[in-house]
């Protein structure tokens, strides 16, 4: 047996290119369906984990998937915003605490998540350094954002305008970094967190400028009537909020009308959850309430259906490849007839010659199984990292 395996090994090593093609085909045939299954399971886990931890999300009527993807993963297009009053309404119902979310703007390619301090507690996010934001204009970076930007506490990041050519649009706001989160292996690692009011400043709903009662601003004042002062565009607007100018920042209008993209609702029990969901069933209601676990479940069903097609395809391709490999093997037996006759003439039995040919296939098959098992193991170990990277893309 040892000698037969040695001869088989020499044959495979000599025809290394042919062996490599055969080995790659067999490895892929075995690995693809199993690896795909492992990857899909891990994707499902990754997607559902965060969704399961988010009981309810309230947002404007529209695509629940878009709402959930924006609120949980800070992805998808900016959903139709709703009034902040909606958060206040749920909060004042006494049925559940709420966490406002306004995910619209970006800074250096990373989403700016306007929320409240409660978000960190609810997601169990810990600080790696610094502190959580307490003032307007302060931000906390996710771990991967800080790594990618090489940013530290004390540095700053500036929001990116949505449209460079919109002169009447929002000002870029320079935000001081006061904290950096520890790694959580979640989308929170890739986000910049600010108080929801800071996002309203970015949007231009709140702003800070020179005190118009001061002499330095006199030249910009156009008219002054009791409490109403009108100034021209030469007035200095602040694009950075500092302890010195924070008192100059103010919001115009009713804060209840200010926009948020969603409100995460955290009902303490099933009854509160059911009552809240009931309130959003009315056709006149302008907001929707979604269960992220259900929304992601539906998405996964679609993915699993696609996976079934991919698996079926992989099986068909695999069978076709195996059939081709078998054909190639049979043809190579014909080509090697002379070699087999030589082996027989110099003392090899038909069984030992057959065993030699079979050993070559078995060696390749076993190597393919080992490689496929190794790849599956690697997928199970590092698939989660890959899935997270794919989710981030």
């Amino acid at each position, binding site marked *: 047996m040892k*000698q037969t395996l*040695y*001869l088989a090994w*020499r*044959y495979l*090593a*000599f*025809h290394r290119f042919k062996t490599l093609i055969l080995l790659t085909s067999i490895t892929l045939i075995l690995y693809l369906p199993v690896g795909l299954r492992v990857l899909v399971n891990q994707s499902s886990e990754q997607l559902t984990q965060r969704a399961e931890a988010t009981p309810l999300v309230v947002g404007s009527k529209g695509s629940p998937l878009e709402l959930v993807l924006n609120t949980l993963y800070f992805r998808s297009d900016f959903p139709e915003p709703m009034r902040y009053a909606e958060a206040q309404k749920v909060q004042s119902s006494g049925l559940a605490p709420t966490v406002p979310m306004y995910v619209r703007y970006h800074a250096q390619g990373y989403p700016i998540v306007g929320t409240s301090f409660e978000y960190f507690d609810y997601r169990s996010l810990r600080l790696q350094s610094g502190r959580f934001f307490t003032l307007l204009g302060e931000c906390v970076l996710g771990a991967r954002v800080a790594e990618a930007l090489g940013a530290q506490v004390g540095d700053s990041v500036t929001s990116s305008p949505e449209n460079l050519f919109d002169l009447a649009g929002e000002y870029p706001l320079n935000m001081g970094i006061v904290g950096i989160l520890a790694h959580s292996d979640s989308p929170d690692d890739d986000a910049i967190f600010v108080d929801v009011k800071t996002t309203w400043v970015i949007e231009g709903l709140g702003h800070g400028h020179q005190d118009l009662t001061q002499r330095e601003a006199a030249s910009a004042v156009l008219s002054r009537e009791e409490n109403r002062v009108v100034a021209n565009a030469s007035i200095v607007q602040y694009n950075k909020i500092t302890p010195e100018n924070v008192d100059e920042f103010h919001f115009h209008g009713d804060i209840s009308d200010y926009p948020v993209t969603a409100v995460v609702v955290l009902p303490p029990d099933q009854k509160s959850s059911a009552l809240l969901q009931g309130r959003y069933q009315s056709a006149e209601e302008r907001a929707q309430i979604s269960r992220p676990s259900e929304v992601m479940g539906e998405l996964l069903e679609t993915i699993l259906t696609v996976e079934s097609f991919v698996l079926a395809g992989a099986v068909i391709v695999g069978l076709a490849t195996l059939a081709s490999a078998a054909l190639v093997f049979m043809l190579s037996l014909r080509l090697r007839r*002379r*070699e087999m006759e*030589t*082996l*027989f*003439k*110099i*003392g*090899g*039995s038909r069984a*030992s*010659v057959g065993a*030699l040919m079979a050993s070559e296939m078995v060696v390749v098959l076993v190597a393919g199984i080992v490689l496929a098992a190794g790849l599956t193991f690697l997928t199970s170990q590092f698939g989660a990292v890959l899935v997270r990277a794919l989710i981030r893309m």
Partner: protein
Amino acid sequence: MPSPVIRVRDLSFRYGEGDFRLHIPELEVGTASSAAIIGPSGSGKTTLLHLIAGITLPQAGKIETHGVDVTTLSESARREFRVKHIGLVFQEFELLEYLSVLDNVLLPYRINSALELTSVVRDRAREIADQVGIADKLARYPGQLSQGERQRVAVCRAVLTEPAVIMADEPTGNLDPLNKGRVLDILFDYAEASGTTLLTVTHDHDLLERFERVVDFKELLS
């Protein structure tokens, strides 16, 4: 004639239902002698070698080689007998392209469990390779050798088991004159030194004078 190492009596053979028929009433080849069989292509010379070696079985007759009637042996016994007592050299060398020269020489030991591949055998293979002038080519592959070198590898493989009979089927058929002489020298030197019988099929009439006996195949047939 010395006592025969090959004795054929009333041999009859034919391939399936084909027209080819072979009938040899008698043939004897003496121990430690050299004999050449000559005859036209397709007359059955190679078939006779296969019958004597026990590769093929006749329909009738008796073939004694080295004192054993190979027609009475089972297939595995014939194989074991062949690998131990008969060395075969072919016109096309019949080397395996994927094995090194050394592995090709050792092939009978790798393909048949009746032979044990030991360090003594390996040393002997190197020694024989040295004698035929291919000691520096043991790590090479057949594709990297000249025709003459390949046939010397085939000769090494045939003599490694120290057979009683070497049967060579057109051993010089694919060689240039220089290599023809060299390969024959090797075969004759080995046969003489070891007392081995050399039975060769050839078309090359220039080589016949070197053999003790020349058998015209047509005269063998009844």
